[in-house]
């Protein structure tokens, strides 16, 4: 009687193993790292300030990345009010290098049908490196081309700046 009981117990145990085998699952491990995407936001807008054109000669006004304006021979100015380099705030992965792409073709500033060309874009830095906090501010300057007897008024336009991880 005592033996019979033991067998019975064994059978129960065996049955239990069998049931366990049918539903067996293995736990593997998988992982993915989500990187912070690079992002760029506009800060200060590029502003050439106010300039006086020449009646018969063309000229240029250049704003450096430091926000300093220089005028060619025939262009005059009354003040430097408003003159500013553009700034852009870039954020992304800490200490990551990235490229900065500025317009390589002419950009138009317009006042109705009157136009002025902006080109010669420069940036500081020329290629980016995010800080340990994952941020960097870049400055952009450019050259404004002024026609002879350029029509008076306020001109504006937009241009594109692209950043990408290296």
């Amino acid at each position: 009687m005592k033996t019979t009981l033991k067998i019975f117990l064994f059978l129960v145990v065996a049955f239990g193993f069998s049931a366990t085998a049918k539903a067996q699952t293995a736990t593997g491990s998988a992982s993915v790292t989500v990187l912070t995407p690079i992002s760029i936001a506009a800060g200060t807008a590029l502003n050439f300030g106010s300039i006086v054109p020449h009646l018969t000669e063309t000229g240029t006004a250049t704003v450096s990345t430091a926000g300093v304006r220089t005028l060619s021979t025939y262009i005059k100015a009354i003040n430097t009010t408003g003159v500013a380099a553009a700034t852009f705030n870039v954020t992304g992965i800490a200490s990551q290098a990235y490229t900065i792409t500025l317009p390589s073709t002419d950009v138009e500033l317009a006042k109705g049908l009157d136009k002025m060309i902006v080109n010669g874009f420069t940036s500081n830095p020329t290629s980016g490196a995010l800080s340990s906090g994952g941020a960097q501010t870049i400055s952009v300057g450019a050259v404004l081309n002024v026609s002879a007897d350029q029509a008076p008024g306020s001109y504006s336009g937009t241009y594109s700046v692209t950043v990408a991880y290296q």
Partner: protein
Amino acid sequence: MSINGHASAEVIQALTASESAALNFGRFSPEAAGGEIRLSPDGIRSSTGSVSLGGGLYNPAIFNISGQPDFNVVVNLPTTPILITNNSNGKTMQILNWVSIPASSSTGIKIQSSGVITLNVGATLKVGNMNDNPVGLYNGTYAVTFSYN
């Protein structure tokens, strides 16, 4: 990632100026000792010494300056005497003490909403005696400069 930056510039109307009336001291006679003729910017003529004023036309210079409204224009009149010459004998007279209405200052003259400044210019003519300044027509040129302040 790309973003559009904005760029802007303001173009101010270039200054232009034209002379609509030439400075004219009119007719006079120096008489024995000569003296001075003062022609004010608003067209009032007076004399000193033995100078006898004659009839006929006389007028201050008038310049029309066009520019950007609300901006200031600095006017620079001659600061040294200007010579006018009698073409038939080469004798000269000096014009000095140039003054304008509106008066010029270091801050300049504000351009009104019309975009125009009418500037009257007067001066003083120094006249010698009959030997120094015999009868005839004397003329010359002078420079007035205008610039935005």
